[in-house]
């Protein structure tokens, strides 16, 4: 069984947290923090297994993690999971993300944490591995995205346009765009 899946960056900011056992929010944050402290002080060339932290698990649990660029992917699993198997699973997860987001980077996880969850749900369900075949996973995700697009239909077009405009403003450092700002922003475009 997988007990928890955590993704955080090099500074310990959570990017995804999935607990398959109930912890309240406060405890969840503590676990993330503790896990970050355990994992972050390890060199990149040491092994990827850690005996679990004190908050989550105990002796039967292991932390298995991978470090990609700015992100740590940590799985907390019990002894029924194969260590190397979980490492492969993390790889499958990241590759699936890469396929779905086209060259995934931390920003994708920051802004689309919901999508990341949906992808993860195709891999792991309630702490048990559902699927390890990447093509199957991608097919399922694409099917569901199609479904979502169908439902949105025409109505989604303007919404997409707006979000495109909002994204345009991103480099301009406009803080949290609000409607009153929009006319000025458009005026600036000089049409």
């Amino acid at each position, binding site marked *: *069984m997988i007990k928890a899946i955590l993704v955080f960056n090099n500074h310990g900011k*959570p990017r*995804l*947290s999935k607990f*398959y056992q*109930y912890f*309240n*929010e*406060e405890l*969840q*944050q503590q676990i993330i923090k503790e896990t970050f402290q355990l994992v972050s002080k390890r*060199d990149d*060339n*040491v*092994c990827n*297994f*850690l005996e679990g932290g004190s908050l989550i698990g105990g002796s039967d649990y292991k932390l298995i993690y991978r470090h990609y660029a700015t992100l740590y992917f940590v799985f907390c699993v019990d002894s*029924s999971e*194969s*260590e*190397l*198997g979980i*490492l*492969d699973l993390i790889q499958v997860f990241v590759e699936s993300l890469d396929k779905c987001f086209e060259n995934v980077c931390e920003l994708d996880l*920051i*802004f689309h*944490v*919901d999508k990341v*969850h*949906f992808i993860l*749900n195709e891999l792991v*369900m*309630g702490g*048990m*591995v*559902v699927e*390890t*075949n990447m093509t*199957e996973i991608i097919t*399922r995700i694409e*099917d*569901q995205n199609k*479904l*979502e697009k169908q*439902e*949105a239909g025409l109505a989604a077009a*303007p*919404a997409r346009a*707006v*979000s495109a405009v*909002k*994204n345009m403003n*991103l480099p301009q*450092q406009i*803080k*949290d765009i*609000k*409607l009153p700002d*929009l*006319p000025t922003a458009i005026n600036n475009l000089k049409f």
Partner: protein
Amino acid sequence: MALRKVKGNLERMFDKNLTDLVRGIRNNKDNEGKYIAQCMDEIKAELRQENFAVKANAVAKLTYLQMLGYDISWAGFNIVEVMSSSKFTYKRIGYLAASQCFHQDTEVVMLTTNMIRKDLNGQNMYDAGTALTGLACFISADLARDLANDVMTLLSSTKPYLRKKAVLLLYKVFLKFPEALRPAFPRLKEKLEDPDPGVQSAAVNVICELARKNPKNYLSLAPVFFKLMTSSTNNWMLIKIIKLFGALTPLEPRLGKKLIEPLTNLIHSTSAMSLLYECINTVIAVLISISSGMPNHNASIQLCVQKLRILIEDSDQNLKYLGLLAMGRILGPHPKAVQPHKDLVLACLDDKDESIRIRALDLLYGMVSKKTVMEIVRRLMTHMDRAEGTFYRDELLQKIIQICSQNNYQYITNFEWYISVLVELCRMESSQHGALIAAQLMDVAIRVGAVREFTVGQMALLLENAHLLLGPAAANSSIAEVLFAAAWICGEFAHLLPNARNTLEAIVRGRLWSVAGHIQAVIVHNLVKLFIRIVVTAEEEDDADMINEVTALLEERLATWSSSADLEVQERAVFALQLVCLVRDKRAAGLKLGPELALLTAGELNPVAPKAQKKVPVPDGLDLDAWMNAPPSESEGSGDEDLLSGGDLFFRSEEPPSPSVGRKNRKAQHISEEDIMQRRAARLQEQANNPYYMKTTSNRSSTRSSPKTSLANLNVDEIPMQAIELDVPLTIPGMTSLSKYEMVDGDGDNKKLRHKKSKKRSKRKNLALSSSEEEEAPAPLVINTDAEMPEGAIVSDDDDRDNRPLDDPHRALDIDLDSPLSPTEVLPVLHHREAPAAPKLKRSSKPASSTVDAAKSKTKKDKSRKSKKKEKNGDLLGSEQKEMALDIGASVTDSKPKPYANGVDGKKTHDDIEFWLSTSDPVEQPPEAEPENAPAAADATQKSKATKKSSKEPKKEKKSKETSKKVSKKSSRKSELNLPLVDGAPSSDLRTPEGVDRRDYEVANGHHASNATPDRHKLLAEDSAVAVSWRARPAADGLKQIRLSLSFSVSSQLSDSMTDIRLVRLHLPDTSSLALTRVNATSSDIDLERALLSPGAPVKKALTVEVQDATVPHKLRGALYYSLNGGSERVLPLKFEVSVLCCLSGAGASREAFSELVSSGALTARSAFTTSCPDISFEQLLRVLCGDGSFGVVERVQNTASLYAASLSGHHVCLLTKLKDSGGVCVDGKASDGTLLANALDVLRAALTAAP
């Protein structure tokens, strides 16, 4: 202006979405909290709106905030609202939020039941998928109970995606609702053979999880898993299965023997490291479970160790880590195999990765031997000097002590060296293990008598130099604990001190006020002991000055202690002070107190066994449950009685269980026995209440020995001399150093040899000998392993029980899965809350393929609703369960389940696994893989019986079609894996005479394995659409029942494979001599649930038939009703010919029983026949005669064999058959019933003449 209008219209669109929220948070790094609070307000406003899009957006944002640690449970109801949206987009957001923040105690979860059920049964596969995924995260006991049925329905979904998820969810359902396990298990088991590998894998996953916690209940599945293991190529599943086998082998060593071969093959062949590693792990588990008796036992170990060495040498740190981990597992049972790789492990100690170093340390623990212990410890200590980080240093220290102390210091040959190691360890910086070192010092000092003087000398030096230990670094370490041990050892063995007065002065002058209270208390107490010792010796030597000086010194210093803030220290100091004053006064009065004082410290201490306290027997007549005082309502008189006996018991029981130190005073002549008893009781009481007193108990009977005066006189002066000579610069003068042992290492071997003999078995009685006679001997090797136990108690390990925590849900899942279901065991169905959704689908005659399932479940529901009126029980799952019950062959009737059904059937499954384990050929499994295929008969016959001549042609044709694939697959697998066919060395120790014969018979059949058909069903009837085949076997011993297994399949004559065939019912009226055991006693029909018949997936059905007379053949007529493409019902007439062979079973054949039977004269009937079968081989002959397991071969000599069968009615039939050289076959029969014999021989003769 125009823009304004647009703004109004599109307002909703410009609401902050998730991306905006994230961006906002990033842009407000300085006042994040404030910004989020503002967003929360907006979200609350959005949640109040009616629009689902707005709500979903708000919930999506909440989910993000939840990840940041904000509690969003207040929005639970809104989340449920979003979940109930009809749009997949929103539903998915809702379920995600729910899976992140709901848990089983969330109250709104109760509201979701019907909604989730709707989603599960919905049209959209992804709706159901999302619901399953979400449910897996927040399922509660109520949800599990209410939805179990719906999840079960999804198991037969046409979509592998849903089947897969439903199977996984079952595990969560079981955890929350254990009652579901038994009814659902048969279906789960079926999923192990699902056509979709993903579903298979999921089922394996679930069963593995279940079995991990309760392995013994899943042992009977071993054959199925074995088959999967040898056939699957899915590494994920293989890993799970192999891990599962690792958990099962400890319960069944024979399983391990069977596993070794395929696992070894996998180890050789696989390129996947993960699989290789798990294989090695399981092989190790097997090797542990079967400690010996394997022919290639050592080869397997060597293979594992060799592969692990490759892993450890790999540059990949992960493999290195795992390699060490697995190596550690081999180490336990087979240390010899690992020891050659010491170099490798020691090299790992230098690894930069701490996890690897710690693993290597663990390994070293098991790798030490008498020869290597010194070297390994020396290397560890050099590591410790270099090591950075206190954690690792402490780990090293602990390991050193564990290595040395394991198994009662098994590997220590030189205790002086060990004491030196411990003293050296005291000097390591900031150790957290001071207490551990202290315990070791005391343990060695107490138990190794001959090294005591040396220890005492070292401890005295340690006390004199206490200031070095208590340097500034000591503040955050526990090293001061060592002083506890030092003081205690010096005090307790004061007679061994070179100069007690010096030590006493050293203690008194040391800066010992800074150490912890309990240490000070011990120091004060031991000052008293030292003082007594000094007084006693001084009086002997008439050295009054000495006494006076010491008394004055103590009076002065104890005064400081008697004002200590620590109560314990204060109390003891005051007591000590008074004693000192008393001595001073008495001496001033000219009295000598020496002998009296000596009594205070006389006696010998023994270590106490760890379990001694538990083992104290309850004295006779002590009833712990009885009232100690009279219960308030009782009368005075009875209360008095209780009180009396209670008092008596107190006195008796008080002493033995006392957990404190018992110093056994030598019985002084002038003190009466009673006095001693009273004093001792009082002192024990006092010590028991003293938390700082060493917790050791002594046994009052065994240790009233005199102080070891012989020891006291020994070599007292020599030891410090020696130590000083070996003094090393920069160390404390006199303090021992390890360097000397490093020099001595070389010739240490000689000494070891010299002492080997005396060491192990010599106990206390050798003590005097080794220390007095062999003066030169530096290594006293006597370890006092006797631990004090209450009289009559024996040290044992019987205290291990179920150590799972009480709230572990797996406790509830410890359920026997082999016994058949009783009719009451069904999944609950909610009647009153049926959703009346989609009524238009109800009677659609030909549902579109994508909705087949939905329609199916709807019609089922429909039916259930109808039948509800008639019969409260007849709901969907109820009847489904009953069908299952039938499948497993339980002879249950609706009204009263037969009481013995459980036992018999449980036994049968047991027999199955027994049989599987006793054979070594995995190809022989089909009977076990399909339990409804009835008893594990001792046969491998594939031929049909000749009674069915008429149906022979089509049968052959069909069978070859159906089974040729299976056969070829199996035989190819066999050749791939090189499995031993029959030559089953692995099961050699299990051979019963019966087993031998069975095996021989299999040898006979082995040549024909290629054309063997594992499916022994014979074709019964066939028309253009449906084919029915059947098989009849005795149900169980002692019951007059046979089991009909029916298999319905798509007929080979059917041209259109897309035809929708549904089985409606089976009409089978009882005859005068055959009676079906029915679910519904009033109807002669058996409902087949409109089961869908698809090509390649036959529907099976097992029926139990009661046979009145098993000596004559019977006929049974019936009909199968089915529908084609939803059209009107069609009928296929069935005619069963139940020959007497169906009622015979050869399973009980054994040589002894057979010869006894033949000679007993009970077999009155005789009959024989001879036929000519020109081209028949003896093997074929036997196969025909044995039929479908009707006869078992008892003995076979060349072309002669004796066979045996028992009939349902308890008759015996014995046959002797010969194949003559001329080609004729002669069969001689003896039986206890003539009709039976005649009928049986008739059938056999017909079969023989029909045989090719």
